[in-house]
Structure formats: C-alpha cells, structure tokens
C-alpha cells in the first residue's frame, strides 16, 4: 500500500520500475547488513561487549546479581512512573486553569468595548491588561527555558527560602512548571480554533463567559487536543529521566549505580533504553490511534455512523486508511 507521502512523489510503478525497486532493495539490504556489521557489530565485538559475563546479570536468572539488578531496575522505573504520573496530573490541572485564565483574559481584553467608560470600568480594563501581560510573560518564560534548568533551579532556589522537599517533589514541580504551560497553550489554542458558532450559540442561550468556557469550549478542546495531550505524556515520561541531576532515584540513576558495581554501561543502558522505548512507543501508538478515531468521527456524516459499525475496514465517507506509513 502506498502511503500518501509516496503518492505525492511517485506514480504507480510499472513493471520496469518494480523490478528496479526490487534490485535496489536487494542491493541496499546487503549494504545495510554490511554497514551494521562493520560499524556496530565489529567495534562491539572487538571490545568484548558481547561477552557473556557483561550480559549475564541482566538476562540470566541463574546469575548471582540477576534478582538484585532487576529489583533495582523495577524500583527505578516505579519511581520514574510515579514522578511522571504526578507531573502529568498536576500539569493537566494547572494547565487547564491557565488555559481558562488566559482565554478569559484575552476575551475580556479584546471583547467589545462598553458604550460608557466609567472610571471603574477603566480600572478593570487596566487590571485585565496587566494580568494578561503577566500570564503571557509567565508562559513565554517557562516555555523558553530548558526543563533541566527549571528542575535544577527549583531544587536550588526553594531550599534557600526554607522550602525543603523531597527530590521527587522538586522534580514534579520542575516538570509541572514546564508542562502546565505547554498543556495550557494546547488547550487554549484548541478553544480558540473551535468554530465561532459554538461561542455565539452559548452567548445566545445566555451563558456567562465562564460558563461558556467550562461547559461548551473546554470539553470540546479536550476532545480535539486529546492526541496532542497524549503525546505530551511521552515528553513527560522522557523528561522524568532528568531527575538524575537532582539525585532522584529514577531508572537512569539506578542504572548508573548498577554500572558502578558491574562495569557494563553498554548492556545496562541498552536494557533501560529498550524498556523506555517500549513504554513510549505504546503511548505514541495510543496517541496515533486516538487521532485517527477523532478524524474519522468528525468526517463521517452522522447518518452513516450506525451503518458503518458493521462494516469492517474503510468507509465510503471516511478518510482513506493510511496504510503502512512508509
């Protein structure tokens, strides 16, 4: 199946092109195998990285270190997942708050001017303008700052003011400061890009500004932006590994300790990377799946949906299935 990307570039191949592609595939496959052998396998082999002693603690249950090593890795990933979960929940809560605040402030600052201009109203406008500016600076600041720096300074600055928390909480605060801003902007742009009729209809039935946001705009924004929000989970999971700089015992720090004892960095980091990739890949697939579900749901006319439940595969009205994404 050709993906959409391929169809923009190429015609359907004829017999001659097909045989050329086959020849090219064979040549390249041979080159790739040779390249991997030369540049990956050989250096590893020459430096004795395939020796069983280095791998045994990780893959051989009868090895004396096996149970201990995997217990530590388990604890490490448990800490990683706990910190990530805390940061995601906190980011969602504060991000939603920030999105509502920013949306309302933008609305108030750019909404229709009242016909009369009393001093009280002018003060209100000034207040709204200032708050709007303040939140914008807040957003730009934490969006533009590396998460490492945020985490580092949370762990350094808060104790100076007598706030001494565990490494886990410092990490969660640092991750939350960054991700709440990102999630807030995701949700806000979701609300802003909804069809204008949604807001007008809410106004027409007499909902207040905040009611409109809470009952009409925000729920739809969550729905549209669900894939982006799930992708952000992957970012948080990856960034949790930065906890090592403030001494949080997450997977990578545990890996470092194992390596100090066993002296096999390549093997241990490979195992940790494989675990990370599996978790994140699963979450990315979930995001991808949700994206397609949402795209299908929106493009299928309401009348067709019931009929299509019984028909597996493509629907006439839905988008063409993506096929194997090249």
């Amino acid at each position, binding site marked *: 199946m050709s993906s959409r*990307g391929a169809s923009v570039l190429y015609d359907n191949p004829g017999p001659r092109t097909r045989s050329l592609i086959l020849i090219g595939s064979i040549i*390249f496959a041979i080159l790739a195998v040779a390249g991997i052998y030369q540049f990956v396998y050989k250096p590893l082999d020459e430096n004795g990285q395939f020796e069983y002693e280095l791998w045994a603690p990780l893959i051989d249950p009868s090895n004396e270190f096996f149970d201990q090593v995997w217990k530590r890795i388990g604890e490490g990933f448990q800490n990683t997942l706990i910190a990530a979960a805390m940061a995601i929940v906190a980011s969602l809560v504060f991000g939603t708050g920030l999105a509502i605040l920013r949306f309302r402030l933008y609305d108030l600052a750019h909404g229709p001017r009242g016909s009369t201009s009393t001093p009280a109203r002018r003060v209100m406008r000034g207040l709204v303008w200032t708050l709007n500016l303040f939140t914008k600076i807040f957003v*730009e600041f934490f969006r533009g700052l590396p998460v490492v720096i945020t985490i580092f*300074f949370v762990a350094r600055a808060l104790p100076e003011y007598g706030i001494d928390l565990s490494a886990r909480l410092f990490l969660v605060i640092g991750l939350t400061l960054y991700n709440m801003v990102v999630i807030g902007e995701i949700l806000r742009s979701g609300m802003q890009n909804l069809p204008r009729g949604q807001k007008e209809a809410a106004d027409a039935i007499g909902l207040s500004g905040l009611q409109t946001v809470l009952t009409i705009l925000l729920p739809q924004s969550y729905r549209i932006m669900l894939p982006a929000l799930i992708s952000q989970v992957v970012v948080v999971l990856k960034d949790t590994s930065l906890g090592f700089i403030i001494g949080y015992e997450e997977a990578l720090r545990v890996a470092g300790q194992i390596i100090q004892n066993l002296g096999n960095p390549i093997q241990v980091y490979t195992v940790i990377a494989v675990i990370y*990739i599996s978790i*994140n890949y699963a979450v990315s697939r979930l995001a991808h799946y949700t994206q397609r579900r949402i795209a299908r749901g929106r493009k299928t006319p309401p009348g067709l949906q019931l009929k299509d439940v019984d028909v597996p595969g493509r629907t006439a009205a839905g988008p063409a299935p993506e096929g194997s994404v090249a």
Partner: protein
Amino acid sequence: MDVLIENADVFARGFLVTLQICIISAIGALILGTVLAAFRISPIPPLRWLGTAYVTVLRNTPLTIVFFFMAFAMPELGSNADILRIPLLEKLFTRLGTDLPFFRFAILALTIYTAAFVCEALRAGINAVQPGQSEAGRSLGLTFLQNLRLVVLPQAGRYSVVPLGSVIIAMIKNSALAGAFGVVGDLFSVADDLTSAQGLPAIPVLIGVSAGFLIMTVPLGLTLDRIERRQAVSR
C-alpha cells in the same frame, strides 16, 4: 543584582559556548535529518524501514540516555569521537582552551537525537502537499526530477518551516543537558558552578542563565508564530 553584574562575563561566555554547541548540532541534525527524510520517502522498502526504525527508536528514547550512551559507552569502545575533529571547525569554534571529548560527545548526542525530529518535520511538510499538485505536474509532462524541483519541494519547504523551527527551539533547550555531562563552560555548567561551588544565591544566577536561553528561544518562537499566522491567512 550585584551577582548578575559581577558575573556578567561568566554568563556571556556560557552563552557563547551554548550557542556554539547549538549551531554545530543544528547543522549536523539538519543534514542527517534530511538524509533520513529522503530514506523515509524513497521507493525502496529497506531504506524506508531503516529510516522508520531510526525515527521510532530515537523519538521514544530520552535524550538523557543518548547522552549517557555517548559519555560512557563511546569511551568503552575506545572512541573519542575524533571524526568531529574537523580542522576548520576547531579553529572557528574555540572551546576556551579545553579539549575534552565531552564537547564532541554532546554534539554527537544532540545531532543524532534531533535528526529524528528534523526528519519528521520534513516528512510532514512533504505529506502536506496535495497529491493533485504532482499529478498536475505529471500530466503537464514534467519528469520526476522537474516535478520534485518545481512543484513538490518548494511547497513542502514552505510547510516545513514552522515544524522545523519548533524542532530547533527544542534542540536549543535540550543543549542545556550538555553541561550536566561534563561540557565545561556552557550555561548549565555556569549555573551549577555559581550556585554549588561558589554558593551564590540561586535567583540572580537563574535570571542570568535564563536570559541566555530566552535570548535564543523567545525571538525564534515569536518569529515562528508570525510565519504561522501569515501562512494560515494565505492558505
């Protein structure tokens, strides 16, 4: 405030080192990412598989692991990343007189990691071009290369600008990690040095260091917003 003024030169030097890392890695990532994108859209299946595998692995790995691999596994293999000792680069980018391999490891790690995202940004740009465009080109009798050069790539380039910019911004921020892996003198190691070794208060140091990053990231981000808005209107 005094801390900021007294250490202004330290911050400035940290900024320059970070900027050097960013520029070299960005160039490397753009080149490698373009090659990968060409792999991923090529008609030869094994090339596509290789590109897909690379992107899947690197996008789902924390950058920290890539850095650890470089900093600990490369010496294990007896490599000092000497391929990056390009004579001209050595002259252009002075590294404050230090020649630790970490600088090269950091650049390699950032390049390898960012290339996966560059590849995806470019591919997204090509996918955004409507198939009708190249069909029209073909029906006019353009050859494959003419079609690519005159119809597809110019449009794909325009669609890729914003995602590519976001990738570069992310890379600038990721470069802070280099300081945590033994690169001496970049903004992160300045932060670490001033607060830990010299015991200065954290907030003024934070202001100095964050200014260094925000100078790079915020103008880029605002420019991208503007380009995006203009494209949204013109489409």
